[in-house]
Every structure is written in structure tokens, then in C-alpha cells.
């Protein structure tokens, strides 16, 4: 008798990949433009858009917290999954070590984000 099939954990990683891919496809370009180009270069938006009081208030708000957490965590899980599955294409054997490194860094980033959001308070 064969042992019953073990349930795969792949759907979890795939779902995170899909959610992160969708979120980054929908708002990624504008987010990069706002935080990385418009505000540092003083284009378009008010100069104090990301000032400390405003960002603190945003990060203390429940919706703001959820948004920040979703963006950082899902972007990380999306990228980790995609990079992990591309390793084979560039001639690197994607074994357990590579898996731990890819998903491990996404998990670490997620935990740091959660810690920082809790430290910022409500």
C-alpha cells in the first residue's frame, strides 16, 4: 500500500505569487513613480506628501497599515517565487537550499514589515 499522497504546499506559494503579481501589475508602476521619482524630484505632488507626520498617520491608520503590509509582503512573495522558478533557466539547480533562500527572504521581509508596523503603533 502506498502512503496517502502528501498535500502539496505549492498552491500557497502560487497564490502569493499570483496576488503579488496582480497587485504589482495594477499599481506597481504608479507606486514607483510616486515614491521613487515624483516626490524625490519634486514633481506633480505637494512636497510634504511623504512628510513624517503624514506618513506616521498613514502607517497608524488600519487601512494604511494594511496597504503598506500588503504591498511589501506580496511584492516580496511574488518576486521570491518567480526568481526561485527562474533559477533552473539560468543553470542553477533549484534545490531545498535555493527554496529556503528565496522563500526565507520573503518571510524575513514580511516579519520585519509586521514588526515595524506594530512598533509604529495604532
Amino acid at each position, binding site marked *: 500500500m502506498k502512503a496517502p499522497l502528501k498535500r502539496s504546499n505549492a498552491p500557497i506559494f502560487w497564490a502569493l505569487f499570483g496576488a503579488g*503579481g496582480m497587485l504589482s501589475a495594477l499599481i506597481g508602476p504608479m507606486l*514607483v513613480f510616486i515614491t521613487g521619482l515624483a516626490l524625490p524630484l519634486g514633481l506633480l505632488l505637494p512636497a510634504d506628501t511623504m512628510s513624517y507626520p503624514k506618513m506616521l498617520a498613514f502607517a497608524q491608520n488600519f487601512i494604511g497599515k494594511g496597504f503598506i503590509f500588503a504591498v511589501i509582503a506580496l511584492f516580496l512573495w511574488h518576486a521570491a517565487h518567480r526568481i526561485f522558478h527562474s533559477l533552473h533557466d539560468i543553470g542553477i539547480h533549484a534545490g531545498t537550499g535555493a527554496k529556503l533562500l528565496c522563500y526565507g527572504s520573503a518571510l524575513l521581509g514580511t516579519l520585519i514589515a509586521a514588526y515595524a508596523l506594530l512598533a509604529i503603533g495604532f
Partner: protein
Amino acid sequence: MSKRRPYVRSMDGWWRKNPFFVEYMIHEGTALFVAAYAGVLLTGLYRLSQGEAAWNGWLAALKNPWYIAFHLAALLALTYHTYTWFKIMPRTMPPVVVGGERLPGWVITAGGLAAAAAACLGLLALVWGMAR
């Protein structure tokens, strides 16, 4: 050990020989920019939790020309990711049947791209409204 030394063709640079795979590697490569940008945001969030001086230091660092160059590259990469994500979507999602007919792929792609454009403009408007 066997004395047989069979010839194994090298796979080095296999994807560079076919434009289809070059495109594939580029769209998979956008993940590097998604990861790096998430890292930038994570650093910012951590700085925010450390207080006003740390946060202002992070804001000042973003004005560094290297950061600007990175964000320009990231903007291109993420825009390309948006395009390929919805270009592939007809093949990554279950078939959509409307009125007994299968929805053609280009409709799904066009719908996705329109949704992304609306989401981006909506985000800009939201940030604009909250900052004023």
C-alpha cells in the same frame, strides 16, 4: 567509475538564441526589480518606525542620483511587468465563457490593461487628495 564520457551539449546562454526566450527571461527578470523596490519600501517602513530623523534620512537618500536611476529602471521594469502580466493572463486563467462563446484573449488583456491604468490613476488621485 565508468570510462564513458558522453558528450553533453552545453546549455549556456540557451535563451539568447531565440527571441521568444529572450522576452521570457526579461519578463521573468522584472521580479528582480519588484524585489528590490519592495526592499526600498521595507527600509523606508523600518526607518519610519525609528522616528522622524531616521525617516527624513531615508527621504533624503531617495534624492541620490543612484536611487533616481534605480527608480527609473524599476518604473520601466514594472510597467513591462504590467504589460506581460495581462498579456499572459488569457493563458494563466481559466477560460471565460460569455453567452456560450469563449471570451477572446485580447479582450482579457485589454480589460486587464484598462484596469491597471484605472488603478494607477486612482492611486495618484488618492495620494493627491490625501496630501492636500
